[in-house]
């Protein structure tokens, strides 16, 4: 109950924030900028799209399915009969670098059960014996499925590592000369350098494989986003372009029938936009055209039946009813 307050002590302070008078930019969608924006987006997008398509068109890609070739079927790999050949015709020469991929269809590398089934520490070459930490590797933690003995820990553990694609490919020219392919560099350098390290050969557990720095392994461990995916296998560095046709000799181990999968070999060059995927280019062109047309329609409409800005008759709520 202090009565000594100065008069008007409760008067609010006159600051820009308190009086909601901060300076502001108040843009509104008037026809001119909107029409210009639409037409500009349209033009720019069509140009970008055309450019993209032209460059993606320059990419040469050959895809051959091989799991349906009788010799390459599942379970044909017993008794050394697991080799099969495919021939890729190359009408237009492919300039190096040319990339050799394998592709799997209907393989759900993005399945939740699959994606999480790995242990990053183990893959870093660290001996992990704490079952709690290995839990992510379920259902493949130990060989007997009972988390009792650390000697039975699977190395590597987890579904991803234990379902590694193990078909191998060799490439020959038409004349049956062996084409030298590069393996180094197919995986992300960061992965090679830091995320994957060989597991100690004398480390705990049942070691089925310990070369975690193997780039084929690393590529496999980077799970694909969608169920149809291709993975980089080898790189052809030239110097000569690939011409005519090449023969790919496949050592076939990997069964796909259990999940109705398909296996392919893909030979492709790349542009600055990456591999052959015209989608982005078409998307740009379509969006560009739509925006452009929309802009033109607005423009015409604006000239034919313009609405006066600030027309007081619309200040009535019933004006549109």
């Amino acid at each position: 109950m202090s009565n000594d307050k100065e008069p008007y002590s409760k008067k609010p302070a006159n600051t820009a924030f308190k009086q909601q008078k901060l300076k502001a930019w108040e843009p509104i969608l008037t026809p001119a900028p909107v029409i210009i924006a639409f037409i500009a987006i349209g033009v720019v997008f069509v140009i970008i799209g055309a450019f993209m398509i032209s460059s993606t068109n320059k990419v040469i890609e050959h895809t051959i399915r091989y799991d349906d070739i009788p010799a390459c079927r599942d379970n044909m790999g017993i008794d050394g009969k697991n080799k099969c050949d495919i021939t890729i015709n190359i009408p237009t020469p492919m300039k190096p670098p040319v990339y050799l991929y394998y592709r799997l269809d209907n393989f759900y590398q993005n399945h939740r059960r699959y994606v999480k089934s790995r242990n990053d520490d183990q893959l870093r070459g660290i001996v992990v014996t704490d079952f709690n930490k290995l839990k992510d590797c379920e259902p493949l933690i130990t060989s007997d499925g009972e988390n009792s003995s650390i000697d039975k820990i699977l190395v590597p553990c987890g579904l991803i590592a234990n379902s590694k694609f193990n078909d191998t490919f060799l490439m020959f020219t038409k004349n049956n000369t062996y084409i030298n392919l590069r393996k180094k560099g197919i995986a992300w350098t960061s992965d090679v350098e830091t995320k994957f390290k060989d597991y100690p050969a004398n480390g705990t557990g049942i070691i089925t494989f310990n070369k975690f720095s193997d780039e084929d392994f690393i590529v496999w461990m980077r799970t694909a986003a969608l169920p149809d995916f291709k993975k980089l296998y080898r790189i052809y560095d030239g110097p000569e372009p690939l011409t005519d046709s090449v023969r790919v000799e496949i050592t076939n181990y990997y069964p796909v029938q259990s999940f109705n999968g398909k296996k392919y070999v893909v030979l492709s060059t790349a542009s600055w936009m990456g591999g052959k995927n015209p989608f982005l280019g078409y998307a740009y062109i379509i969006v560009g055209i739509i925006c452009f047309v929309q802009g033109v329609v607005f423009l015409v409409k604006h000239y034919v039946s313009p609405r006066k800005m600030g027309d007081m008759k619309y200040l009535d709520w019933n004006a549109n009813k």
Partner: protein
Amino acid sequence: MMNSSSTNSFRPYNGNVEIPLQDLQNGANSNSNLNGAYMNSMDNDDDYEGGFVQKVQNFILRIRDDFIGNCRTIHINNHEYNLLYKYTNNYVKTSKYSLVTFVPLNLFEQFCRLANFYFLIVSCLQLIPGVSPTGRFTTLGPLCIVLTVTALKEAYEDYKRHKEDDRVNYSTTEVLRNSSFVHVLWKDIQVGDIIKVYDKQFMPADILLLSTSEPDSTCFVETANLDGETNLKMKQSLEETQFLADDLNQLSSFNGLIECEHPNKRLYSFSGSLLMEQKVLPISIKQVLLRGTMLRNTKWINGLVLYSGRDTKLMRNSNTTPLKRSQIEKSTNHYIIFIFFLQMLLCTACAIANGSWTASNRKAFYLSFTRSNAVEGGMSFLTFLILFNNVIPISLYVTMEIVKLIQAYLINNDAEMYHKETDTPALARTSNLNEELGQIEYLFTDKTGTLTQNKMIFKKCSIGGIVYGNETNNNRSSSNQSTPATPNVLNNLDDINNNNTNSSISSKLHKSNNSVNLQPVDFHDDKLLSDLNSKTDQSHNIQEFLNIMAVCHTVVPEQEDGKINYQASSPDENALVNAAKFFGFEFTHRNQKNVFLKLNGLEDIRFEVLQVLEFNSERKRMSVIVRSPNGKLLLYCKGADSVIFERLAPNQPYADVTINHLQDFASEGLRTLCIAYCELDQQVYQEWLKEYQIASTAIINREAEIDRVAEIIETNLFLLGATAIEDKLQKGVPEAINILREAGIKLWVLTGDKQETAINIGYSCQLLTPEMELVIINEQSKENTIVELNRRLNDLSTRSNSTENKEQMALIVDGNTLNHALEGHIKYSLLKLAKNCSAVVCCRVSPSQKAQLVRLVKDNLASVTLAVGDGANDVSMIQAAHVGIGISGEEGLQACRSSDYSIGQFRFLVRLLLVHGRYSYRRISKLVCYCFYKNIALYITQFWFTIFNGWSGQTLYERYTLTAYNVVWTFFPIIIMGIMEKDVSESILIEHPKLYQLGPKKILFSFPVFWGWVLNGIYHSFVFFAIPAAASYKSNAYSGGENSELFAFGLICFAAIIITVNLKLALEVRYWTWVNHLATWGSMVVFFCWILIYGRVNAKGIDSDLFDVIYRIGESAHFYFLLLLVPIIALWRDFGWKFVNRYYKPMPHHIAQELLKSNDSKYVSKRTFSSYAFDTQELGQSD
């Protein structure tokens, strides 16, 4: 002591309260039944959505209050004996938590909020190993942040309460212990203690006054903390205890027993009795000093503690305001439930799909399924529940709470709603209802003190059939008022002037709201004084009339430097007493038995006051029984004409002519009171007195008994005449009403005044215009009311057929009619009729009828109601309406305390509704929709993805980045928009009140609008998934030949979402301050910084899913072209749609924006909105 705590925690009048005196000016002409109203509001207490916790607390209180026996017994000076009763100590606790209980109690309270509980369950589910697709803490993290923010707010508020409690509990007072007064902490004071309180000290408990320093053992108290009234009230101890004085021996040997009622919240009544020396003495509220009141103008008092601690009436009244929720919040809660069911449906569908997918892919060796299909499916349900849990936005409530708090802060700090004269800024007592202010369709307003100033000025009177004060010489120059006839009057006038300047100083000192500028008398007629001196019958009439004005009241005079300040609880009484003084009948002082007058400044006369039959709004009159200086036994009575005329003796000489005068007065908008008296027979009086004494000692139903007995003696009155008092309109009321009406708000004026007065005020404040047809319904019986209502309705329907403008009708109903019209089904007819009228005036309504009318509209129309009022009789209406607004005016603070917002003047309502309300409505609507949108846009992408990952519920997003979505990446821009956003400037909103209809028409928040946003979110989520997915189909490689992978893909989607969602908000923002820029662009920058930094983290123990990802995808053109394409495809719809709507189906606010844009400042300066000028002028600022 209680001043600060009381403002937030304490609210009087929630219970069955006896009528405070200051209701005279409202109730004098009204039909009020306050008791009923308060009973209603009390009964309703439990119905309010008070939250579970509160219900539990109430329940516990009720158990604790299971008092034993019929009454409380206190043994004076017998400490040991009193202990047996285990009365509560005087420790007062307003805080909710202690250090120990804070965490559990606060958490419990927060989890009572359904959404929080839901997220808690989800968080628990996430902790089950193997179930969560997004790690363990994606929900728990944000939930903890949300809970912490709320808890911190609570903790701070409770800390303040603790400090306040300590200050109170550890102050000291003098208590009689072992025959001497010693200082004792307040918390240690016991029931039955005798204590001593000095001038300007607060009462530590409810005490019985025993003796005081003043003659006659009187004392004065200020009750501002209790009920907001600033006038002093006189209390007086029983004659039988006066001998105690300050004598320690007497006090410590004082012996007796007190029986009184159990603790209750009734501030204005008390029943008890004191048993001493074989006598039973009645104790009433007159002898009780309540905790929270301050002793004034009295050196000391001795008292006996009756109630302590939480049993005191102050604490009994400290209920929290009933919790009101806004329409938007209620709908939001419904939508949440709806979304929740949709989400359950989605989860179930996905779980079924998961089961069947598992069945057909069982043999896929790489997945090594171990569990059965059904178990897989079942478990995946939980997975999906977690995956989609944030479709219900976790941050919604906390965002909303923060935004609303700041909005309330802006309301409190609005300089244009600051009333300089009374130094009152606007005050948002709740922040829950900000947006509700923007949706008002029906406005119920009290008249007196709300539309008018409640500063009563004595203007005219009718005495003995002659009207005085009717002269036309309105020399209104305040310095030179009309020359008075006699020097006496001149002196008196000066006195009044001095008095007022004096009281203006003292009022400041006393923090009084009393008038500074206005004289309580504005009377220009010499005839009255000449007639008074004429020695005729009329002279006698005038003398008696003035006697009554000077004697029949409850005003307390306060002597200060030889001047007298009148402490009146009612402005009417103040005006009357001052008028009597003006005419030479100066009321100088009073004691328990006498009232002293000074005639013409010379002659002292004394009226012995035998009984005071006090005013209440049921009685609508007040009487005193006095023995006049010449020994006659007289009953003086003043009251509303309706009650006085009923009680007149037959053959009144002046009745008819007075009725005419009353009507004249009323049609000028003046308030009238009838003045009557009668001479009593000694014998009759004595007999009546016996009955009265029985009634006044009754413990049960004492008030009703007293009323009944008073009724008996107030008969056979002789009517002398009537007074007319002017209550001036507040500044800017007609303009404000005009604007509000233009804004499409329907105004109902609910007043206790007479019909003529009400209609007249209606015209002068432009609620009624000459073009309007007045539909007056004034029926006495139920049947007639029905017939009349139906006739009017038929009229209406035939008229609307003939396409005549039906808007121009005003409905006038009076309280009597309402008695019938509010019953049963009749009320629907009334409502139908009222709906078609542009203005409604209800006269002579009681407080409970006010509340009934509000509920009638609230319950039967889908409209938001607002009630404005300033007095205790408006409390029930204020609580009943969706939004209650209190005018902090002359009548104390009761209305404000129970209101949701309080303002200084009626005209500020315009700004509160049209500017703050509309802004808040827009801000909150957008905020709620956007919060849902952004979560749906993010989380439904997970659904699209799950179609392509074998219905397994794999997340696309990295867990920590995902966790921060709602609390960092998209948190700030929406808060800033919730605080700063304006679509059109304040001045335009006031100039074009129609823009207000945005809220009432539910343009920005309704079922279709909300689901529009949801669908938009779904569309966006589809774009967010489909475009990147198509672009990386078959793991399209980057330029270096490497493949895309899961988390790279996810990160592209996520980055596109962050950009789009922030840009989407940018499209909604119309008012870009630098803060908006900072928040919008800053959020995106911070996000990219995060992924750049996080992309470098690769440490043991961390699942570094995003390690290096941004650097890999950042090398490809692919990434940037997607980031450009996705937002444009998504926002193309929003942008195009906005433009098409604006251009071809413009809303008024679009036009207003264009107006402002097209000729900017020129336009504004051209019309400085005459209607609004008053506000800008007042502040001396121009817009």
